C-alpha cells in the first residue's frame, strides 16, 4: 500500500509517454496517391511559357500565386474560400438570439462573452470555416506534374480536415485550361 503513488504513476504516466512518442517509421505518403491525370507529357512550349499558362489558369480559378521558380518550372499557389453558413457545423455550442449571441466551450478551448444588439441571427457570419487549397505545378522539360491538398479550418484556426486532393477532375481541368490557352495570349 505504501507504494501506491508509484503504481499510479505507471498507470497514468505510461499512456502519456506513449502518446508523446508516437511517430511513423517512414516518411508518409498521400492517401490516396495522386491521380495519373496529375502528370502529363509536356508540349513543345518552353518552361516559362507553361509556367505563365499555369499561373493564368490558376488565377482564373481564384488561386493566388505564392511562389515561382523558373529553374525547376515551379508554380506554387493557394486558394482560401469562406464556407458561408458553416459556422454552426464547427461550433456546435454556439447559440444566437435576437439580441446577440453567447457561447461556451468548444473543441479549441473556452470562450465566453455577451454581445448585445439587433440582428443577432448573423452571429455565425464571422465564424464560418475556411477551405484552404494548396497547389504546386512543376513544368519540367519532359513532364508536367501537379499536386494539391485541401484543409478545412474553423474561425479559431483549428484544422478540422486535412487531406491530399490531387484528384483527376482538378488536374484534368487545369491541364485543359492550360492547353486551351494560346501561347501568344499567355506571353502578352
Amino acid at each position: 500500500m505504501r507504494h501506491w503513488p508509484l503504481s499510479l504513476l505507471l498507470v497514468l504516466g505510461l499512456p502519456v509517454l506513449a502518446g508523446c512518442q508516437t511517430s511513423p517509421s517512414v516518411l508518409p505518403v498521400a492517401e490516396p496517391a495522386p491521380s495519373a491525370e496529375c502528370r502529363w507529357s509536356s508540349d513543345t512550349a518552353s518552361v516559362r511559357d507553361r509556367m505563365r499558362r499555369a499561373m493564368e489558369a490558376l488565377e482564373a480559378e481564384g488561386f493566388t500565386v505564392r511562389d515561382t521558380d523558373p529553374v525547376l518550372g515551379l508554380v506554387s499557389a493557394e486558394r482560401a474560400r469562406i464556407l458561408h453558413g458553416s459556422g454552426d457545423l464547427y461550433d456546435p455550442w454556439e447559440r444566437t438570439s435576437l439580441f446577440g449571441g453567447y457561447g461556451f466551450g468548444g473543441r479549441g478551448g473556452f470562450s465566453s462573452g455577451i454581445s448585445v444588439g439587433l440582428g443577432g441571427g448573423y452571429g455565425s457570419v464571422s465564424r464560418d470555416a475556411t477551405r484552404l487549397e494548396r497547389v504546386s505545378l512543376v513544368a519540367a522539360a519532359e513532364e508536367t506534374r501537379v499536386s494539391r491538398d485541401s484543409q478545412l479550418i474553423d474561425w479559431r484556426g483549428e484544422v478540422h480536415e486535412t487531406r491530399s486532393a490531387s484528384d483527376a477532375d482538378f488536374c484534368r481541368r487545369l491541364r485543359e485550361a492550360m492547353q486551351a490557352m494560346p501561347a501568344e495570349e499567355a506571353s502578352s
Partner: protein
Amino acid sequence: MKRHLWVLTAVLMSLWLSGCATTAPPAEPRELIFETPPELTLETAVALLMERGYVIRHADGELGRVEAVLARWPGYNVQLSVQGEDDTSRVSVSATRGGRPLAPQTLDPLLVDLRSRLGLFL
C-alpha cells in the same frame, strides 16, 4: 519513507511533463552524396516528392532548396537541399511532423528511391 516516495513522484512527474512541453529542437538532417549533377538530383527529388503527394510550397533551383508539405494529420514538412558541382550532389533532407522533428532514419526510404531513380545502385 513515505515522504521520499512523494518527492520521487513529484520529480518524475515534473520530468515527464517537461519532456512533453519543451520547444521542439531543429530537425536533424539525413545527408548523402550522389554521383550525379546537382540540377538533375534536385529535379528528380522534386518529382519524387510530388509523386508521393507532397505539395511544393517554396523552391529555389539556383540555391538548390525546396520546402514541401503533406496534408496528413498532424502535418508533415520536408526541407530538401542539394548542393555540389559537376557530377557530385550533396543531398540533405530533414522533416517535421506536427512541428516536431522526425528521426533521420525515417527519410532513408525516400533517399533509397532517389538513388534508384537516378540510376545509382547500392
